[in-house]
């Protein structure tokens, strides 16, 4: 998967350590996975790789670089746009921590 890594961030010890003006772009220190109630799961057998989910994901967590589409669960907020838009019904929303129940 080609998605940015989360880095360890050391809190500044004093005010002098805070950046003045510009700060390094693309710094990710925290995941968004805790937001999620439902988790999208791709059925790779049904998936026809039309890339619709990749196109409409507001968070860009669907990666198309591999053989199958992959979801970066670190940053997926579980909004369900991908499952709603999937034309072949290859994505189901599963309740977190309760693997049996699809939405």
């Amino acid at each position, binding site marked *: 998967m*080609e*998605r*940015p890594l989360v880095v360890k*961030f050391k809190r500044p010890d004093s005010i002098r350590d805070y*950046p003045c003006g510009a*700060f*390094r*772009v*693309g*710094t*990710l*220190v*925290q*995941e*968004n996975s805790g*937001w999620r109630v439902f988790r999208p799961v791709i059925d790779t057998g049904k998936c026809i790789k*039309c*890339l*619709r989910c*990749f*196109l*409409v*994901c*507001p*968070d*860009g967590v669907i*990666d*198309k*670089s591999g053989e199958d589409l992959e979801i970066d669960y670190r*940053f997926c*907020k*579980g*909004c*369900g*746009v991908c*499952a*709603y*838009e999937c034309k072949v019904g290859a994505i189901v929303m599963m309740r977190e921590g309760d693997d049996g129940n699809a939405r």
Partner: protein
Amino acid sequence: MDEKMVTNAGDLTNTEFFYGHRACAGCGGSLALRLAMKVLGPRIFVAIPANCMSATSFLYPQVSFSVNAMISPFPATGAVLSGIEAGARALGIRDHHVVGFAGDGGTADIGIQALSGAIDRGDRIIYVCYDNEAYMNTGIQKSGLTPYGSRTTTTPAGKNIPGAVGRKKDMFGIVAAHGIKYAATASIGYPEDYLRKISKAAMCKTTSYIHVLAPCSTGWGFPAEETVDIGREAVDCGLWYLAEYEKGDFILNRKPKEFSSISEYLKRQARFRHLGEKEIEEITVGRDEKWKKIMKNWRV
């Protein structure tokens, strides 16, 4: 500079330039930003005034942009973009794009003067207005682009008013009246059309303007997963239109054979749910008037 037309998901790069932001789940605005930046590529300078996207992506130490990005003063997006472009030119940088993402309030109310000035100067910048039809960042206040009948915190629906009174400002027409080289309207409900318009704007040698409708599940009151569908239905029912302004001509890109039901579109959203027959009739009349003008004067 990559001057290839991007028209579908297959053409898009897998790299994300806007990642790990804290926008609400199913945010339409973040999708508009994400897609535009993927088309324009890594060599871009981004300026964003106060809006949801700056509030959710510059959270020290978390920075969701992996390209040069800055927060501009609220009314100054156009001026800041011109300044960045001038700076890049002075440094001899040529293979770049300068793009600004302002909300509807930051474009039609607060930033309209700077936008007007930027179009007048004609610098090579791309101005994207992502329109979620109210000041969502500060808690859903009415803006100049809030449509008639929409309930916001400053236009509460009740006995005296049916939500916002007055029509949505015709921002596309205002920009076109400047004699801009390229302007377009889009919706995230039709992402391929939006991608094509962004890549067309990227080829433009002067200022270009894209107005993209970006539904907001929090402010409009619909389930998060329907964001893209609501954006599509807004176009299908005729309350929003996909058009371009190029070389002095208005061109309609999508002409629905038959409009889908306006009341169905309105009833899906909590901000319109209080509307009665009379108000819906008024909205329908407004739509038909607009489309009469479109069919008469625009290239269809």
